């Protein structure tokens, strides 16, 4: 059914690698989703107004999508501070979506100049001075890059005039209520505390040695799969916690431990309980888990 009024969508980039743009272009239903909106401006898709008009004028904007980290001063487009362009449209928008970890918390590019670079409303977990002004319309969608389906969920909820429940960091609870660990095909190995012996194996969990942050990273990568296909942990790459305010940490392919126990516990699990459980579980010797899942005859 043809809608009467299409919300006007404006996609602006600050300090970014364009990864969120390209991630969203991979949405299989991209054009059916976009059909609910009028694309006022977008970095690569055809849109109603060009960049120069955007900088010069006051374009209409109901939903503002921000991609990239934020710097108060010194990042210019066509001689104008990008921060002022974005704030200008943020003032007028009804909804502000921070797309990706850079726009939300500062992300990787924050490390270049931690004092000057941050997310739009958050600087890691701290609120920036903009928070108070924009909090009422802010939706955070961290992820490096953003998951295309997480963005489409938010856009369609808005298009259908439905209220999106958010947590304290303004992340939609339906997307970030899970941890990445939920739905990982290696869960059985996690439960029985069996680590992957090396990279490149289907068997074993990556939490104990290889640096997987899945159990304490919020995101539905293993529920709503990437590219409709897979996830990092399913193909044996550790989760690097890219949705978290602390991203990126260091030694990402290695689990930090205290006396042989992972230094960071699964979300909400007390250390003592974890240790007790580990003790019990490790006393089992389960043959199935010490073998390859499948053998191919040569």
């Amino acid at each position: 059914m043809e809608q009467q009024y299409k919300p006007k969508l404006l996609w602006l980039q600050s300090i970014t690698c364009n990864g969120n743009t390209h991630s969203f272009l991979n949405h299989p239903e991209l054009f059916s989703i976009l059909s609910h909106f009028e694309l006022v401006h977008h970095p690569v898709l055809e849109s109603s107004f060009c960049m120069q008009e955007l900088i010069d004028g006051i374009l209409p904007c109901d939903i503002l999508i921000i991609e990239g980290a934020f710097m108060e001063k010194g990042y210019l487009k066509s001689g104008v501070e990008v921060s002022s362009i974005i704030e200008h449209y943020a003032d007028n928008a009804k909804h502000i979506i921070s797309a990706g970890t850079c726009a939300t918390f500062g992300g990787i590019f924050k490390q270049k100049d931690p004092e000057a670079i941050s997310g739009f409303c958050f600087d890691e977990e701290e609120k920036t001075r903009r928070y108070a002004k924009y909090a009422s319309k802010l939706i955070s969608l961290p992820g490096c890059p953003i998951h295309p389906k997480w963005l489409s969920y938010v856009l369609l909820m808005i298009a259908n005039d439905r209220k999106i429940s958010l947590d304290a960091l303004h992340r939609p609870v339906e997307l970030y209520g899970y941890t990445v660990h939920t739905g990982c095909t290696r869960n059985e190995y996690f439960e029985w505390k069996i680590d992957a012996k090396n990279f490149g194996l289907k068997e074993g969990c990556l939490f104990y040695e290889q640096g997987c942050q899945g159990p304490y990273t919020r995101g539905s990568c293993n529920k709503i799969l990437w590219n409709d296909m897979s996830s990092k942990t399913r193909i044996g790459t550790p989760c690097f916690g890219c949705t978290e305010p602390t991203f990126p940490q260091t030694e990402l392919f290695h689990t930090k431990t205290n006396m042989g126990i992972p230094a960071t516990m699964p979300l909400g699990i007390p250390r003592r309980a974890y240790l007790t459980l580990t003790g019990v579980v490790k006393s089992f010797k389960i043959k199935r888990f010490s073998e390859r899942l499948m053998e191919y005859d040569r």
Partner: protein
Amino acid sequence: MKRMVIRQLIEKIEGEAELDYTFSEGRIEDVKINFGFYRGIEEILEGKDPKDALVITPRVCGICNHAHLIAAVRAIEDGYENAGVKIGLTQKAKNIREFTLACELLQNHIKWFYMTLLPNLEKYLKIVSEENHAMKATYFSTTITKALAIFSGQWPHSSYAIPGGVTCDPTQLDVMQAQSLLEECVRFFEQVVTACSLEKYLAIDSVSQLHKIEGDFGRLLHLLGSNGMAEMGQSYDRFIVFSDSFLSKAGKSIVTSVSKVDTRYVHESAQKGSVAKAVSYKNRLYETGPLARGMVSKEPIVKSLHKRYKDSLMTRVFARVHEVALLLEESRKLLKEIRVDEPSCTLEAELKLYEFEGTGTVEAARGSLIHKTTVNNGVIVKYDIITPTQWNLSHGNEKEKGIAVKAMVGSQSIEEADFIFRTFDVCSVCTAQ
């Protein structure tokens, strides 16, 4: 002599660029290309674990992140080898890496063709089209990146290649799924891009047979040919390739002679008024990318076009779209050869070396990408990234104008120069890092 400078903001490339065109007597005499913002990935890496580069460097670029991953892993592997640790990748790991890289090039070329080139050519020629080019582009790129994600977990920004191999351990089922997705892309190429079978397309080896190409590619070639554009946009006719791949061996091509290259002679220099550094090889500028690969490998159809049109926009555009066919065909072979029972990774996860220096090269969509890593006391002390666009899009030096600048000089309008600029598949994100 009347001179004037006009500044223009170029968008809908990867990122944005600001171009200062200097006109003299109605023609473009010089162009200054200014890129936005320096993000400092190289500095961010200093002090980090060498393997962290596998996670951080893909964030240089949203569209060629995978090439950065492969360059980064090769730099570490080269460093390990230099430090005396033998790296023996299995054929399986090699094929998987080559295949995923091919997927990334494929999505790039098709997006460029449908989202940058066709719409801008139509705009330039004032053709009104009802086609949704972007829909074709995203259909193809979504499909091929699904195949990529089967092995890499996701695209963009995966880090599945690690020293000694890959983290994935695919089943036959996975390989078959990738094959089906690839065939879907072959079908798209045959029905929509060229309107002829891949086999028939690949048999075309001379300009006289170009009429066999129909579809959107045929239409593009026809538009360029019939509007007097085929000879526009020539540059220095010098080409360079740094990485061996099935597309081309490493080498440089000047006039008709191809000779060896060595990354030691690559020199980076800061440019006034731009955050992007310029690169040269033994003090000379070279074009890199699909046309360079076609010239260095002496791909018959590219050579035939070059003979007729030199390094014009026609030859340049053709070489990029042509790679789609080569990549599709090679990908079929790569997948077919994968033996799932071979090991995925031959090095131990905890292997850690404290001192090494390594260089990794890869042929990315826009040309040769070079990563150099220096590790002391177990952490990165220096990391250098030289991107393909730095070759093509620099201003040049005192002696010579940059490659793309040279191609634009002589144009009679900004629109003309703008289109020539876009035939280089411009990425400001990579250029400025």
